[in-house]
């Protein structure tokens, strides 16, 4: 006998459904509140910031902090530096990595497997263990305290990761595609750029985004290989933020600067969320 579906949920089911949504609500609060708090703090004056009891909304939203960070220090310069470093690192990684991924993903040759696994190992090893050696290298190349110096050292982690992601994309493209190009007399470089490039574009976007985010957020190398404001990037600037008095830090300005560097990243991540999640989990699951 077919039982009719009951429209009214039992009390137990309703209770567990209610509990479930309370849990979801709490989860959302937990994930989002810290960033909300950064925004609220960035819109307060110092007096409002250090007032008790704490106000959970900005009483009179102050945009002045967003101006102050650009006038009391060259924050625009830091942003520009970060764009140069992250952009340069990304483009270089993609360009160099594409060739390597094509070789590993398509060509059979001795040493292919060891090279692939060495790349994998490089992504795992701690960057602190090369910090001293890199410092000496950067000094002796005359790249200390410069943007090119940062770009070169960032390739340490973006390049293997890029090659790794692109290789998995290259492997999924059917052979027939380039074989046709080779029969028509194309060179490998032509086959790569005319045939593979358009098909592999989604992979380039994923790898490029992840490389950009990594380089944009990097702190240890930027802190160690630069000293002047001339070549300082945003993460170092935010970490080294100091106020007029050493007693209380200007938290409203720090939060304003934090919001400024985070918003572009959040927008990128939200637009490309499917791709990023796919790239991250593919990288992790295939590991």
């Amino acid at each position, binding site marked *: 006998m077919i039982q009719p579906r009951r429209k009214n949920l039992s009390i137990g089911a309703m209770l567990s459904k209610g509990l479930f949504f309370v849990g979801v609500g709490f989860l959302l609060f937990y994930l989002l509140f810290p960033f909300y708090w950064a925004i609220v703090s960035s819109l307060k004056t110092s007096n409002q910031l250090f007032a008790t009891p704490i106000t959970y909304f900005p009483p009179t939203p102050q945009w002045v902090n967003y101006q102050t960070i650009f006038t009391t220090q060259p924050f625009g310069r830091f942003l520009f530096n970060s764009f140069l470093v992250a952009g340069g690192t990304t483009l270089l990684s993609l360009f160099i990595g594409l060739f390597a991924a094509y070789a590993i993903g398509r060509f059979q040759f001795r040493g292919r497997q060891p090279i692939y696994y060495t790349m994998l190992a490089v992504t795992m090893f701690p960057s602190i263990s090369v910090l001293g050696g890199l410092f000496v290298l950067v000094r002796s190349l005359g790249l200390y305290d410069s943007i090119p110096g940062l770009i070169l050292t960032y390739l340490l982690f973006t390049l293997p990761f890029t090659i790794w992601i692109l290789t998995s994309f290259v492997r999924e493209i059917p052979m027939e595609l380039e074989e046709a190009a080779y029969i028509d007399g194309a060179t490998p470089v032509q086959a790569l750029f005319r045939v593979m490039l358009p098909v592999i574009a989604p992979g380039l976007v994923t790898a490029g985004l992840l490389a950009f985010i990594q380089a944009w957020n990097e702190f240890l190398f930027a802190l160690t290989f630069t000293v002047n404001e001339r070549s300082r990037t945003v*993460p170092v600037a935010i970490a080294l933020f100091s106020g007029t008095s050493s007693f209380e830090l200007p938290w409203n300005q720090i939060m304003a600067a934090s919001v400024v560097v985070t918003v572009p990243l959040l927008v990128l991540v939200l637009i490309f969320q499917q791709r990023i999640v796919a790239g991250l989990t593919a990288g992790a699951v295939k590991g």
Partner: protein
Amino acid sequence: MLNLKNKDLSKKQSSLAAWRTRTAWFFLAPSLIILLLVAAYPLFRTFQLSFFDVSILKFPLQATWVGFDNYVALFSDPRWWRSVWNTVVFTFYSVGIETVLGLTIALIVHSEFRGRGLVRTAMLVPWAIPGVVSSQMWRWMLNDVYGVINDLFMRLRIIRTPMAWLAEPALVLPALIMIDVWKTTPFMALILLAGLQGIPKELYEAARVDGASPVQQFWRITLPLLRPSLLVALIFRTLDALRVFDMIYIVAGTQIETISMSIYARQQLISFGSLGYGSAVAAGIFLILAMYISVYLVTLKVEVK
């Protein structure tokens, strides 16, 4: 005649193979040169310099050979062992909590409900915020007088009086673990969610027909089939936590209560400028992580078999 043709063909094939090999190496060359320059060479230098007494302040470097002295000193350096201990405790608790919490979140997001897309998007927020930014955010939130955490916790009656989260020695490490859990649990949850989505729905239907309760389904189906993703997520997170630098450096500085291995190495190398001893510390970290990675590779191989 026929023989000759075959020979010709195989000759042609082998020359084609040689040509393909040459092309492959040609394509690989730029990447290999760069990685030799920024990975292999500095790593070699780290090991080499660890046998010298050398200051980072003078260029060109003036190094004095000291043999294993740096390693002998490292072995009896209480600050080094304290940093190892801090890092291991930090890793153990953060990865442990992240796994349980990440699995819970993954299970919640895996079920069908209205607003699921919103939660999935929100999960990316802590991950997308730069580490330096989230460290400063939490440092401000954990401020003992003006921090919102004390205010919230007191309103919710979790604590009675404001806590000095970042000044009280016994509270700093738990606070750091709390921050790390917030920042990295979403990553864990995303990997586990991908694993959950790979489990065939038919299995649950069959279990339901056989009268298995949801709890039984979780222990008998979900957990065993999730094992590979769980293992990978655990390994990646452990590796990350063992390397921790940014967050602890910004929130707690170089104080002995919470100094991590990476922070200690950088302090010796750069702040104190002892390139020789600092390199021995860095080499020590490398060896610890290499040990961990090889254990992991062996485990994975066993797992795959």
